[in-house]
């Protein structure tokens, strides 16, 4: 014991005795600092991400059909996994809820919809068609306003074509298009519109509208779910605009993030982006190429606004812009271009004018809460089906407002989801089989096509004209009856008794995740539910593996640092030992046993490692505490999601501290082993006889 105390005393005395010790110490200090800070950051990101993933859509764990080819990937809406449907959600809910740690089981299915917007003139013509159609007829004032708007658009196209005609080569334009435009802008055409609106509309739709090639389509990812159950289970969800879908109704809530990105007037959205960068991120237009690009886009892309305005609104807009810019220009397009030509000095005042005065003249959002949205999706059978869904409002997750990942999916009621999923019912299979049977044809495989189809002789037949009865082909009646489902209210039983692609499971005690998953899997197996249980990390797909990847990078970097440290420490201790050959020889001569020498070198190195390791850990801990106080800002939307908010406030990880201690101990022991053994072989006579 006294030996050990003596060794400790010597070790502490020798810590700063040589420059080599200082080098070794600094390496250990940097390594432990890195280990503690990195480990704490990764642990904090892990916790942040788990909050984001569990709290937004995945739940603590998920169940899905075990027979599926893929497994759920709730954030990978760009590639929908191939999952087999759970035919009846109500049959799995009860058994899963029987586990005491399960608080909610929420049916879910993810899909991507396509929202097609015709070109700008198509959209107004569609409104005009509805306004003059029986059943949806609008007052004369509305019809007249829409007519004026269309006429204004025709005039804009005419002006544009005139301009392009001047600079483009002759023959660039179909002369017929010029004639059609002339007709569509004439007083005679509009004078006779009311007497035969549908023929006039057909002319505008087929001869004029195609001249504006600005049609647009939006890809909208959504989660089909029992909306009430979802809102109860995911308490970070909050309604931003509009209202929650009433219980039992078909409807949709758009993610606020997507709503701003996809449905807002592009010029306005760009203004918002510049405003946010200037006010929240302290950027400057003059210094930021991205902001300059947004300004340039706004300057050039004024057509979206010009086409939106009817003659009256155009006049108002010209007047506002003339006043703001102190200009006498009358061309709205030129005025808008000048208005959007902003810099750091005038941006905020223009931003205010836009929202205070101009915004009321344009449609800021092409879809408002309460309106109907037609969305299409590829069904399970490969065809494209469409449904009309009422948009009740927008939602976001508290703390994840600006995360594109958390806001990447909108929410849809389960009934509409099932319609778009296109579950092939037994009735539909029977109908297809009957049609195939009537047609009486057999499938010819691709490989055999030429041999099978052209193996005979020339086959030309003369047909006999056969009258085709349209009514009979339409199923006995000339018309197909359609039922409006948007007003129907479904019972909870109807919602639950049907297809779901999977279900999110929320736990009362998330720390019991692994044990609960085991029990749930046992329930599924026992009741032959055919389900597989996976945790939130796996359910998040590649995103869930992000933290694992970060950990691997951290541990690999730490490993490299300590391997280098091990080699350097080893060499340094060898050198230090060689410098002390006379001292060791003397010790051995006055009776110190080999074990004492071995212990001395080992203890000195380990003490050195522990002292500098502790110093590194202390510095690392201090740095983490500092970061915890100030927070690390999320520089982009991905970090916003990983941090589960606008800033990451990392906590000190006990695991990292313990890990650092163990690594330092191992590295120093291993690196000192060889020099220590070498020191025990020093012969006292030779050592004392040698020169300094």
């Amino acid at each position: 014991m006294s030996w050990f105390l003596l060794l400790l005393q010597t070790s502490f005395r020798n810590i700063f005795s040589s420059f080599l010790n200082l080098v070794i110490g600094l390496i250990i200090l940097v390594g432990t600092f890195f280990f503690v800070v990195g480990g704490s950051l990764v642990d904090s990101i892990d916790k942040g991400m788990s909050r984001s993933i569990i709290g937004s859509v995945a739940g603590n764990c998920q169940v899905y059909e075990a027979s599926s080819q893929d497994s759920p990937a709730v954030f990978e809406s760009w590639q929908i996994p191939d999952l087999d449907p759970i035919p009846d959600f109500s049959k799995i809910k009860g058994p899963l809820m029987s586990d005491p740690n399960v608080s909610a089981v929420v049916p879910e299915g993810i899909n991507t919809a396509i929202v097609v917007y015709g070109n700008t003139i198509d959209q107004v013509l569609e409104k005009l068609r509805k306004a003059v159609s029986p059943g949806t007829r609008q007052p004369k004032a509305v019809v007249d306003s829409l007519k004026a708007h269309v006429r204004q658009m025709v005039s804009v196209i005419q002006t544009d074509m005139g301009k392009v005609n001047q600079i483009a080569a002759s023959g660039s334009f179909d002369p017929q298009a010029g004639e059609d435009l002339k007709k569509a802008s004439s007083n005679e055409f509009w004078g006779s519109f009311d007497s035969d609106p549908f023929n006039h509309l057909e002319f505008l739709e087929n001869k004029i509208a195609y001249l504006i090639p600005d049609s647009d389509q939006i890809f909208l990812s959504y989660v089909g779910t029992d909306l009430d159950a979802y809102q109860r289970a995911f308490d970070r969800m909050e309604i931003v605009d509009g209202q929650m879908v009433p219980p039992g109704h078909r409807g949709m809530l758009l993610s606020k993030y997507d709503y701003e990105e996809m449905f807002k007037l592009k010029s306005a959205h760009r203004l918002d982006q510049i405003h946010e960068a200037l006010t929240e991120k302290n950027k400057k237009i003059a210094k930021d190429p991205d902001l300059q690009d947004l300004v340039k886009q706004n300057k050039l892309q004024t057509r979206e606004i010009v086409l939106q305005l009817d003659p009256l609104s155009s006049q108002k807009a010209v007047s506002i812009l003339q006043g703001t810019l102190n200009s006498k220009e009358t061309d709205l397009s030129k005025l808008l271009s000048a208005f959007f030509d902003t810099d750091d000095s005038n941006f905020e005042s223009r931003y205010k004018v836009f929202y205070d005065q101009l915004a009321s003249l344009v449609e800021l959002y092409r879809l408002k809460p309460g309106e109907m949205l037609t969305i299409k999706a590829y069904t399970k059978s490969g065809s494209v089906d469409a449904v009309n869904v009422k948009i009740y409002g927008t939602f976001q997750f508290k703390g994840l407002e600006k995360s594109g990942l958390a806001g990447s999916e909108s929410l849809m009621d389960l009934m509409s989801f099932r319609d778009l999923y296109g579950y092939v019912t037994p009735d539909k299979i029977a109908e297809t089989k009957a049609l195939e049977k009537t047609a009486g044809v057999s499938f010819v495989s691709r490989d055999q096509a030429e041999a099978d189809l052209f193996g005979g002789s020339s086959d030309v037949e003369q047909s006999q004209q056969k009258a085709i009865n349209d009514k009979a082909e339409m199923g006995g009646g000339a018309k197909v009856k359609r039922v409006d489902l948007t007003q129907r209210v479904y019972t909870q039983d109807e919602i639950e008794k049907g297809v779901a692609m999977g279900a999110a499971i929320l736990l009362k005690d998330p720390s019991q995740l692994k044990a609960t998953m085991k029990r749930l899997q046992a329930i599924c197996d026992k009741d032959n539910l055919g389900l597989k249980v996976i945790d939130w990390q796996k359910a998040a797909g590649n995103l869930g593996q992000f933290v694992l990847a970060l950990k691997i990078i951290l541990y690999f970097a730490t490993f490299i640092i300590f391997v280098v440290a091990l080699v350097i420490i080893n060499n340094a201790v060898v050198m230090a030992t060689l410098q002390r050959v006379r001292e060791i020889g003397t010790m051995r001569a006055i009776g110190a046993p080999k074990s004492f020498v071995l212990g001395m070198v080992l203890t000195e190195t380990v003490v050195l490692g522990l002292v500098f390791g502790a110093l590194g850990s202390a510095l690392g801990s201090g740095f983490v505490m500092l970061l915890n106080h100030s927070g690390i800002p999320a520089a982009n939307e991905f970090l916003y999601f990983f941090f589960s908010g606008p800033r990451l406030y990392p906590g000190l990880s006990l695991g990292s501290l313990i890990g650092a201690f163990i690594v330092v101990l191992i590295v120093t022991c291993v690196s000192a082993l060889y020099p220590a053994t070498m020191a025990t072989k020093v012969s006292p006579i030779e050592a004392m006889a040698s020169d300094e």
Partner: protein
Amino acid sequence: MKTFQTKMFHHQDTKTPGKTIKFLGFSPSLVSWCLGGKSCLMFLVLVLLPGLALAAEGLSKDKMVEILKGIDLRIRSGGDYKALVYLEQHQKDKPDIAQEALVYRRDVDQKLMILFTKPKTDAGKGYLRVDRNLWYYDPTVGKWERRTDRERIGGTDSNREDFDQSDLAGQYDPQFVGEEKLGNFTVWHLKLTVKPGIDVAYPLVEFWVDEATGNYLKRQDFALSGRLMRTSYDPKWDKLFSDIKKDYLWFPHEIHIYDEIDKGNSTLVIIQSVDLSSLPENMFTKAWLETKSR
């Protein structure tokens, strides 16, 4: 070579006694006069010998344009056209889709309408082509949408051109590839490239035209990049006499379409019956198609 020449210039319609098909610009009377009269030798010298040269060097451009015009002319109805069509889509790892539709055409005005009648879930859906616009209507949502010529009709591998009249001579420049065998048929293999400034579903098309009948039997559609998109076979052709056209209207009885991108997907189109009676004047409008569902 004798068979080639005979088939090229004298295709006797065996199932319609007394009717001789006008082919490659030679009227039946000229062909029969030449073959039956004293001027046969002259005919051989003037026509068949250049024909032999053609076979050796390939078809001249004029001759290929004539072949394409012949196809266009045969498919054109001259008046109104209504057909009952069956579509069957086979998909890899997915259930089959079977549909029935009514196809209406008014070729003079370049108008086309496809109205789906079966299955129940698709009844009332339809396409309307007016000029260069192709519209799609879904009564479930009561909306019209613009579609392109590449639209997969009813979610199958077929597109608008498979149901419409054709304008191959007007849209494409032909190039002779060679004389080939397709199963038991001797065919001309032509390569068509779209003319500048014309919008078509596929800018490059390869055609295999039956030398005996002048009908195309095989077609391959390529993207501008040269990637093969689909292969279709039209092995059986039917014809129906049109009083307005004063000639036969030809239509493929069945079209087998194979998707070359999603291998394993294919479509079978069967034109079950054709009716050339006059159609209502106002039917090629959005309003008419909308009235088919309520």
